[in-house]
């Protein structure tokens, strides 16, 4: 009951919003105060990528946690965390475009076409874009809840692309420990949905069978 009240508290959303901005604030401060090590550009690219992945995990964790913990109030934070995932991927893309590519759009297009690892990351960004653009209430109404939900299933593909992008990036260094952690988290979050869907299907089939028996 106490958790429920905390989740529904008027301050809960602003608090989560502010907390989600802390990594961004730290990166801005670190960049200006020269606290990001010898290669700040690389630090910013990696950190924004990490935070994209983290917010993707958080956004995908909301529904399973809501059901498993019996906390419907968690649903209030799903849109916000999803949009923060998009916020950090935008920063990630901006860092790559500016620091690696010197904002040369010809070079960027060429790079995306040429390197599968970049193409995969960029595809994830592209697929996430319609979800961010249709995140407000009017879009839900305009699309209809069913179509909106179908569209937003794209996030599962985004999760796969994000992990592949990260895996490929680390493959050069043969360093998969962190990739495995994120992959395991996403596998649990997506696996839970598969199990739910199978159960629903079995549940839907049962009354039909019962009806036949009768």
């Amino acid at each position: 009951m106490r958790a429920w009240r905390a989740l529904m508290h008027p301050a809960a959303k602003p608090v989560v919003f502010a907390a989600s901005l802390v990594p961004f604030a730290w990166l801005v401060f670190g960049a200006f105060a020269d606290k990001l090590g010898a290669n700040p550009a690389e630090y910013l690219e990696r950190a924004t990528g990490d935070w994209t992945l983290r917010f993707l995990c958080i956004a995908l964790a909301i529904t399973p946690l809501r059901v498993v913990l019996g906390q419907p109030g968690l649903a209030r934070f799903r849109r916000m965390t999803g949009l923060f995932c998009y916020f950090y991927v935008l920063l990630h893309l901006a860092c790559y475009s500016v620091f690696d590519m010197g904002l040369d759009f010809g070079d960027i297009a060429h790079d995306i076409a040429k390197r599968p690892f970049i193409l995969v990351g960029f595809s994830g960004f592209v697929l996430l874009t319609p979800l961010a653009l249709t995140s407000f209430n009017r879009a839900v109404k305009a699309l209809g809840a069913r179509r909106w939900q179908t569209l937003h299933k794209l996030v599962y593909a985004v999760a796969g692309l994000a992990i592949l992008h990260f895996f490929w990036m680390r493959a050069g260094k043969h360093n998969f420990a962190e990739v495995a952690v994120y992959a395991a988290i996403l596998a649990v979050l997506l696996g839970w949905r598969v199990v739910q869907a199978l159960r629903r299907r079995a549940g839907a089939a049962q009354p039909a069978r019962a009806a036949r028996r009768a």
Partner: protein
Amino acid sequence: LPGAASTVPGANTVEKLTEYKDATSYNNFYEFGTDKGDPVQNAHTLKTRPWTVEVSGLVKKPMKLGIEDLLKLAPMEERIYRLRCVEGWSMVIPWEGYSLSKLIDRVEPLGSAKYVEFVSLADPKTMPFVGSRVLDWPYVEGLRMDEAMHPLALLTFGMYGEVLPNQNGAPVRMVLPWKYGFKSAKSIVQIRFTDRQPGTAWNKAAANEYGFYSNVNPNVDHPRWSQATERRIGEDGLFAKRRKTLMFNGYEAQVGQLYAGMDLKKNY
């Protein structure tokens, strides 16, 4: 560890030096961790005294040299080299050492010696990541004999006028300025002369990404990133434009003839 300015052609670039702090805190030394901040955190456990380098294989005079003997084997020179990492960043570092050829001459290689193999220390007691499955330990690197004899190939004991910090490959390492950084083996314990091309650490780990030669080459990309440009560490802040990478890291005039007639796309 002072050294007189080197007279070897190409050994003293006049570019702005990378800050000591950056050159000693942003390192790839996988025995101490895979993050570039790991070596400076973890390498204090490395014991650099006593230290022996065994020189063996196809030589007339195999020998075991203590680090004190190695330090006295030839006069120390200071060399200011560009360092280009395969990851796309670069530094300018003043090193102290002498040409590897001075040591090679001492052991008198046989005519059958075609390659030199460098073996780094792999001590699980002092190197926490030896045993991780990232690479096949010990770290092995290698050169063709003519590359090893090139005067720019530096057997290195110091940087910035000081003894090498542990995280930079103490007490003795190679520096090969025309090759990607990983070719320069750190904390060397064995130098072997062989008639067969050594199986090198990164080549064994991913042959399609890291070749035996690994000469800096802006025209041959890594499968996952371009090698055409590089980020000079510490240069003009965050928005500095990346520099164009130069063939053989700018040492083409000195080393180009070693690779005359070779297909560098195939022998990457």
